């Protein structure tokens, strides 16, 4: 084997493994290319395109979290956007209250990440420690999110305020409530005079999302290919047998569920930071079915497919939304068609075909050979 290939192989060790598609050198070359394009994108995209693209990218964390629990650990949640919403609301409420006094949003960020994880821990403790059936977990999460939506929709009255933040009923938090205070963009002070404001229109925000996206993607790849990731897959395949091998299935399910809530809440915080508003719609049926569509159609057992699928389908939804109400019917057909024709996912299917082509051409053999040879 070429020494260079071996070096690359070793460097990619932690993120490469049998539990993720795309591990050949050509894949990583393409990956580097994509990252490079993302880095230089602000120089050739218009201001509006960049703003729009940033918005697409905020969804990646939500999608990755669902992919992790559903595709790898076998836990389907139909209410995953609840954590996005709780994160966004918690961040917004704390941000509105503290932005003037503190000048930054560190505490709001902490609240936005912490609150959904606490809720996930409580719900997860009840559901996983009761060893609840998978379908029950799925529909209970939907019930939870729909009730939160109903609750928030009736908070239009003046009594529904938390400090300076008015919950605003179905107008949500933001300038639409007729209230001057809107949730602030992420404002992070790194030292006395180095303050960064990550507003939706800024390049800083775009680079923050790209950075967080790449880190999350690589981090999750390392996670699923670690020993823990293999145990998660074992739980997906057969929880009882995994338990017999000495693993505490309930604790691991709870842990991975909380991690997915953390990722979803990151999407929520970024969403609020991007547009300075959030409405109870994010708890509704449509916001919750969207991540399920992305992950199911793209390929739930692959983080790579999920990221690509989420970005493509969000883009497609936006194009369709311009055509009027037809968007959700089309997305429904995409979901149903995808589930029936390519149950493992469209992008995963294409990826495997490309992989087989590489194998036949002998390109991917280096990595795989290295792996087996030790």
């Amino acid at each position, binding site marked *: 084997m070429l020494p260079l290939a071996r070096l690359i192989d070793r460097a990619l060790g932690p993120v490469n493994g049998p539990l993720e598609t795309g591990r050949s050198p050509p894949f990583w070359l393409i990956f580097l290319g994509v990252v490079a394009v993302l880095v230089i994108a602000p120089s050739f995209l218009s201001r509006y395109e960049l703003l729009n693209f940033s918005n697409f990218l905020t969804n990646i964390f939500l999608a990755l979290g669902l992919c992790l629990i*559903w595709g790898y650990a076998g836990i389907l949640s139909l209410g995953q956007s609840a954590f996005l919403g709780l994160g966004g609301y918690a961040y917004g409420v704390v941000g509105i209250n503290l932005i003037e006094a503190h000048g930054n949003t560190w505490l709001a960020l902490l609240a936005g990440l912490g609150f959904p994880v606490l809720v996930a821990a409580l719900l997860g403790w009840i559901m996983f420690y009761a060893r609840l*059936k998978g379908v029950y977990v799925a529909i*209970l999460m939907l*019930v939870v999110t729909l*009730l939160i939506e109903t609750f928030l929709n009736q908070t239009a009255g003046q009594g529904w305020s938390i400090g300076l933040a008015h919950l605003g009923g179905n107008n949500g938090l933001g300038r639409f409530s007729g209230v001057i205070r809107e949730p602030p963009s992420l404002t992070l002070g790194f030292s006395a005079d180095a303050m960064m404001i990550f507003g939706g229109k800024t390049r800083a925000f775009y680079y923050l999302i790209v950075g967080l996206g790449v880190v999350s993607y690589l981090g999750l790849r390392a996670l699923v290919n670690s020993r823990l990731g293999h145990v998660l897959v074992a739980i997906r395949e057969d929880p009882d047998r995994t338990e017999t091998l000495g693993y505490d299935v309930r604790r691991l399910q709870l842990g991975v569920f909380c991690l997915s809530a953390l990722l979803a809440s990151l999407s929520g915080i970024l969403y609020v930071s991007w547009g300075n508003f959030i409405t109870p719609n994010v708890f509704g049926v449509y916001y919750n*079915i969207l991540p399920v569509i992305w992950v199911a159609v793209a390929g739930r057992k692959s983080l790579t497919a999920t990221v690509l699928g989420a970005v493509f389908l969000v883009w497609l939804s936006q194009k369709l939304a311009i055509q009027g109400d037809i968007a959700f019917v089309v997305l429904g*057909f995409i979901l149903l068609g995808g589930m029936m024709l390519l149950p493992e996912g469209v992008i995963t299917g294409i990826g495997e075909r490309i992989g087989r082509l590489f194998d036949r051409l002998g390109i991917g053999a280096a990595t795989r050979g290295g792996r087996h040879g030790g």
Partner: protein
Amino acid sequence: MDTLTFIVSLLYQYADTLALLLLAAIGLIVIFGMMGVINMANGEMMMIGAYITSFSYYAGIPTPLAVIFGGLGAGLVGIVIELLIIRRFYGQLLASLVATWGLSLIMSQGAYLLLGPLIKSVPTPFGSFGVGDLSFSYYRIFIFAMGLALVAAVWALFAFSRFGLHARATMEDPSMARALGVDVKRIYSLTFGLGTGLAGVAGGLLALTSTIGPFYGQTYTPQAFITVVVGGGAEIVSGLLASALSLGLVKTVVMNQVNILLGHVAMLVFALVVIRMMPSGISDWVERRRSQGRRA
């Protein structure tokens, strides 16, 4: 308000809540109990039932027949869905869940595109009666009776008919049932059709009390799911009844004292407490107790 009025109104609310829970969940729990499949399009089946009821009513068909048409229509749609879609996902419960969710999206949004945000609602029959200074609708009482009647009918169907015998055998052990000559696939199609048909009848009955639109059925979704989760799938009829009776009580009391939203929240909290102790629902818990008793 005097004591009598208060008691009557509380009982009336309880009956009304029970009717809602029974009707919203019956189709769902029949399919779940028999096939393990959660039909995410249950609300849309109620919507179809309601739409057919409304169209039939305005075509001059008598109301009771219109509701029956609603049930038959939804039942037929269910059988077609089973043949085309559900069949491909036998043994993959989460996949069937997601597929029926896609279907629900297509049907509700499709109805919205084709027929608009509202259709003509059907007038509530029977009038009302007064106790103290409050007035109550006879039709609500009738719906409650119909909810119980449907549960009884489902029980009788499974207990006494040939289909019921085959269905119970399939539920117990599909491969053994198949070996004994039961056409398991046909049983599954018919069961799915039965479940969606029941949802259709429920949708038709409830349509007479509210406005009807494409998302009409979805408003019942949270309550229907909670009822199924608490009831479990081990015993369809007893599970549904036990679940509706207990949840209905919780909701009625909280609704009466505070408001309807907290009534729903209280149901969810109650459900979470129940599943913490009986993860597979009340019916499974009772079933297990009973079989332990038999062994001892």
